[in-house]
Structure formats: C-alpha cells, structure tokens
C-alpha cells in the first residue's frame, strides 16, 4: 500500500448573467448637499463584496474618491429594481447600471462646476480626489463639495442620474436552441495535484494552480477572495459534499455539519493563481462575473488527477474514499467497480 501522486487539468468558461429574462437591474445616483454620492439600489450583498465594488464603480465614473460614495441598499421602498444576486451577474449588470446613472449625475456636476468656474463643461475633469479642474490647468479648480452646495442652493439643480442594464431578452428557438444566453464569458484553467492513499482511497489535494481571465479585476483582493473561496468549494464538491450520500436513495441525509462533510482549515492545498484581464466590451470597465466559475474548474481537475495517480475513474460526484477504493480494488480484480 502506498500514497500515489497524480496531476489533472481542466479548462472552463463561464457566462456572465443569464439572459432569459433580459436580466435587468437599475441604479439611481444622487449627490447630497455636500457632494457625497449616494447610489440607491435594491441589490443584495451575499458577502462577495457587492457594496464595495459598486462604490468603486461609482467613484471611478464620477471621478471622486471611493470614500465620497455611499451605497444605499436594499429596500424596496427606495431602491429601484434589481433582478437579484445570482448567475455571476451583480458586478456586470448592476455595475453597468451604476456607470450609466453616475455618468448622468457627473454631467450635471460638470455643468454646475463649469458655471461656477465660468468655463465650458467639456473643458473640465474630475481629479479623483474631490476636486474638478480645467484640463491642463489644475489650479483653476473647484471642489466637489462646493459644486454640490452651489447646485443645491444657487443653481437649483439636482446632481443625479438614472441607470439601468437590460439585455434584449432572448427566447430560445424551440427546435434548434438558438439563443443568446449570456453577454460575455470568463475563463479558468486549473491544474490539480493530488495524493491518493491506496489503502483507504482517501484523496489529498496537494495543490491547485490556476489561471483566471476575469475581464477586469475591479478590486483585485476581492477577486482573490472569490478565487480561493471558490477553489476550496470546488475541492469540497469534488471529494466531500452531498445531502444524499446514497443518491437516488433518499436515506441517510445529513442534518448537521458533523454529517455534512466539507474540508476544514487543515485540509487546504497550496493555492497558486494568476489573473488575466481581457475586458468585456459590454462590462463596467470590462469586468465579467467570476464568482461562480472559481468553484468549477477544480472539480474535474481533481477527478483527472486521481485517475493519473491510481488509474481510477470515478464519474459520479462526490468522489468519496469508498468509490476510489472500490476502483482500486476493481483494477486489481478484487472487486466489482462502483458506479
């Protein structure tokens, strides 16, 4: 009996959003009297960090620092419609709605600043630090706070904007399945290295080395969060998890975290990753959705690595030690193979 190593590979893509319902989301942006930009949404942050990324998108579009942006979500009395947080759609769909709304608000901001500075709005730019100045003449400037105050109390203008994302709804053609299911795709390739205990069938994932193409990493550390957390979930799906261990038999379903197995902090592999950016032509600053994809590529890579290590194909998830061991014994002629 021994521990045998193997490597396996997978390459995947993942659609951003899902176009069967047109996939709409809306955003409203307005400035307070003192130039804080409030983004009003009904979108949900599941923990992936939607509020932070939406702050960054609004700040970038208007040209103010992120700490001058507030995200006001999620209240159906005040927030405009959002389809929901799923299908790797949030960054792209809601982000696009915010870009549109923020551009409209920015145009008013610039008009007011232009009036105050007695120049043309087209000659102005925001410096990303809280001031607006004439292009090429940084000293001829006005702060965003002063501009907002002037809009409210002098010009009678609302620095605000409306934005929405909606794709043309795609109805699949019944005979051929011709459709436009998504607008852009992210990509990943994972190489897994595993070690299989031939006595117990247990699989240890030694490393996951991956390259991800994400369109644009709007907040690189938060992209890494999706990558590491997703890779962990991929290991978990590949080797541990199910609510029905004897599927399709309904017996013996786990009801707690003692029975529902997942890798713990002591079961982590070496995570290696690189990030590529090929901006999506329709994405906010090119961003695509990557939250879901990161959990997908490790699963087949691990399955293929197990075969490489011990010559066992387990084509049913999860790949439990029992299934691996049955495969090993079957290869030795000692047992009928499992499904």
């Amino acid at each position, binding site marked *: 009996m021994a521990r045998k190593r193997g490597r396996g590979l997978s390459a995947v893509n993942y659609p951003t959003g899902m176009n069967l319902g047109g996939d709409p989301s809306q955003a409203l942006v307005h400035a307070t009297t003192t130039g804080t930009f409030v983004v009003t949404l009904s979108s949900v942050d599941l*923990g*992936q960090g939607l509020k932070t990324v939406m702050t960054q998108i609004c700040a970038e579009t208007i040209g103010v620092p992120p700490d001058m942006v507030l995200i006001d979500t999620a209240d159906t009395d005040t927030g405009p419609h959002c389809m929901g947080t799923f299908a790797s759609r949030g960054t792209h769909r809601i982000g696009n709605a915010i870009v549109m709304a923020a551009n409209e608000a920015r145009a008013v901001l610039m008009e007011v600043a232009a009036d105050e500075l007695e120049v043309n709005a087209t000659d102005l730019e925001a410096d990303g630090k809280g001031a607006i100045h004439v292009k090429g003449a940084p000293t001829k400037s006005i702060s965003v706070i002063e501009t907002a105050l002037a809009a409210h109390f002098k010009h009678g203008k609302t620095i605000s904007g409306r934005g929405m994302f909606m794709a043309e709804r795609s109805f699949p053609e019944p005979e051929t399945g011709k459709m436009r299911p998504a607008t852009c795709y992210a990509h990943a390739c994972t190489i897994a290295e595993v070690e299989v205990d031939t006595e117990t069938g247990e699989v240890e994932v030694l490393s996951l080395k991956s390259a991800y193409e994400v369109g644009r990493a709007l907040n690189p550390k938060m992209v890494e969060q999706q990558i590491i*957390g997703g890779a*962990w*979930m991929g290991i978990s799906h590949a080797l541990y998890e199910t609510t029905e261990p004897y599927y399709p038999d309904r017996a013996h379903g786990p009801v707690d*975290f003692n029975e529902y197995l*997942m890798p*713990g902090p002591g079961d*982590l592999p070496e*995570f290696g990753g690189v990030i590529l950016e090929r901006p999506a032509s329709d994405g906010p600053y090119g961003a695509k959705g990557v939250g879901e994809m990161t959990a997908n590529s490790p699963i087949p890579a691990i399955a293929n690595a197990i075969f490489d290590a011990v010559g066992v194909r387990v084509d049913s998830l999860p790949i439990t030690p029992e299934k691996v061991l049955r495969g090993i014994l079957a290869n030795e002629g000692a047992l009928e193979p499992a499904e």
Partner: protein
Amino acid sequence: MARVPVVFTVNGTEAAEFVEPGAMLSDVLRDKLDLTGTRVGCSQGTCGACTVMIDGELILSCLTPAQRVNGKSVVTIEGVATNGELDPIQQAFATGFATQCGFCTSGMIVAAKALLDANPDPSRDEVVDAISGNICRCTGYEPIINAILSAAAERRVAKSA
C-alpha cells in the same frame, strides 16, 4: 415555568436577567442583552458561529445553558476591542480580506483571541487547530489563517513595545 435569575459579567459589565430554565446563553446574549454579534448558525454546536469565552475558555453559547454562567465572566465579539481600539486580530481580518459574508467572523475572532491569549506565537498548525471548530463557507480559510498569524506577530510587537 418560573423564570430563574442569572447574574454574570459580560465584556466587563455585570448582567442580571431572569431567563427561562434551559434558555441558552446565545439567546440571552442576543435577545436580552442585545449582543447580536454572537451569531447562531446551527443551534447544534457544529458550526462555531456562536463561540464566546467563559473565564477564558472557548464555549459554544448555543449549547450552553445560561444558568451555567452564573458568577462567571463572558467575553463576546463585542468585548474583543478595548476602549474602542480594535484588537490586532480584528485589524488583521479587516485589512487581510479575511471576511466575506461575515457570519462566521465573530466566532473565528473569539477563537483566535483565545488562542493568542494563551499562545502568543502559534505555528500555522496550531492556528488551524484553534479554528477547526468554526465553519466558514466563503473564504476557503486561507486568509483567516494568514490573518491570525499576522495578528499574532502584531500583538507580539505591541507587547514588546
């Protein structure tokens, strides 16, 4: 059923409540004392989100009858910072991107505090051990382990200064 008195110290302040016999500490903390930072994820003692310290020891507050803490000292996530100053563990979780949804974070940080209070210079394996009763579904644990290790270093520096 007649309610029973429970008197204990929580985060340095005395608490006195009448509770249903068998009421769990997590419910008393959350519902009566409004210390909702202690999260309840399973009420089975299997997720670790409700972890608090009693007299320096880690316990699962969802399985601990409130009566058991009579006369004892409880520290919850709300008591990890001192005088509004975040503990280096909290700092490291925030700056190290070690939180995502945040639901496990309270229990993780309390578990980390218990570890570092007892062992200022833990190995990675000791950190892994210390949080192995706490489930995180978002992060893959890696940033949490790294945050605790960097907080340990930060705390050692602060202590020697």
